[in-house]
């Protein structure tokens, strides 16, 4: 599968940021690298024509998560970093490398991006949504039709999960008001 220059540049950027987030000694620098990683991934989603996912990644991953990480950092004491990178522990490298190899071994089994015969596209369910979403729900974004109408119960669960995040934080911090 050929890879375009933009995709190659983005992948390199994302990989570099991921390594930075993992290896940088200074926690603030690692958080910034993680934010840049999220931003790179969100642009990558756009390039792969998944704008809904890209928008979520940019807003949640690069935006809110970074702010929350920084707030957590400002409320904790981190030791001064005396060197740029963490010392590399070879046991960790072996473990992470093994995991990456395991995941990477499944990649050749995936269909090519945009393959019209891949099960995701040619499958009965996808074809049904694409053919009937507008007629049945009157929304043009098939993603929204699936999210809010066909799979509304799942989305209700997601909403409750998000809601419970703030409830859990309240109880962990032993507070009764959010602001």
């Amino acid at each position, binding site marked *: 599968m050929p890879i375009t220059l933009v995709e190659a540049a983005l992948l390199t950027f994302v990989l570099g940021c991921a390594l930075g987030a993992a290896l940088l000694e200074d926690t603030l620098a690692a958080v910034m690298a993680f934010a840049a990683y999220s931003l790179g991934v969100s642009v990558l989603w756009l390039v792969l024509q998944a704008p809904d996912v890209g928008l979520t990644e940019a807003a949640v991953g690069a935006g*809110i998560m970074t702010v929350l990480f920084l707030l957590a950092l400002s409320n904790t004491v981190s030791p001064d970093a005396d060197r740029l990178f963490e010392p590399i522990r070879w046991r960790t490298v072996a473990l992470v490398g093994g995991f990456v190899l395991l995941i990477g071994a499944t990649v050749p089994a995936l269909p090519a991006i945009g393959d019209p015969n891949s099960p995701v596209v040619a499958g009965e369910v996808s074809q049904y949504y694409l053919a009937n979403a507008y007629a049945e729900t*009157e*929304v043009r974004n098939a993603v929204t039709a699936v999210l*809010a109408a066909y799979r509304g119960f799942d989305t*209700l669960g997601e*909403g409750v999960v*998000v809601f419970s995040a703030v409830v859990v934080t309240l109880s962990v911090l032993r*507070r009764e008001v*959010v*602001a």
Partner: protein
Amino acid sequence: MSTDDAGRNAGDADGAAGPDAADSPDADGDEAAPGLYVESTIIMTTVRLVSPFILTFALFIMFHGADTPGGGFQGGVIAGSVVMMLAFAYGIDSTRQWLDGRVIAALASGGVYVFVGIGLGAIALGGQFLQYAEYEALFGHAIKYAIELVELSIGAIVAAVAIGLFFLLAAGFDHAIEEDPS
């Protein structure tokens, strides 16, 4: 002490906001710098000018998510970020005082109630849970409007939770117990 603390937090977050990173070079929770929150006219004016547009954009993402990429989750986060921007510009403590905690709680729980209410309403009309088509008996284009309302309720949940987590993490654990919640 608490204003001191909030100022430091705001300064830290400020430095991380991106465009103002140069303002606070050592924004890593340094204890020795209490006044990291800079009351900058430029930041305050920019935030005041930009926030109505961002809030409008958030509502656009929420409502227009039915026809273009977007939806409640993304729009809600963007709406929540407006309050964070205000906190960067005016300090977390004053934003906390300006914003009533009950509004946040009402938005978060109200969103869940609306979503569940839409589902139960369909049962009341003789259908199944979340079967929007049942509302067709009451008004036209019922499914589309039900989806928009669902997106809006998701947006309310997500925005309120983002704002709530922001203020909760800013307050931290230290003065969570002795500070009497008002």
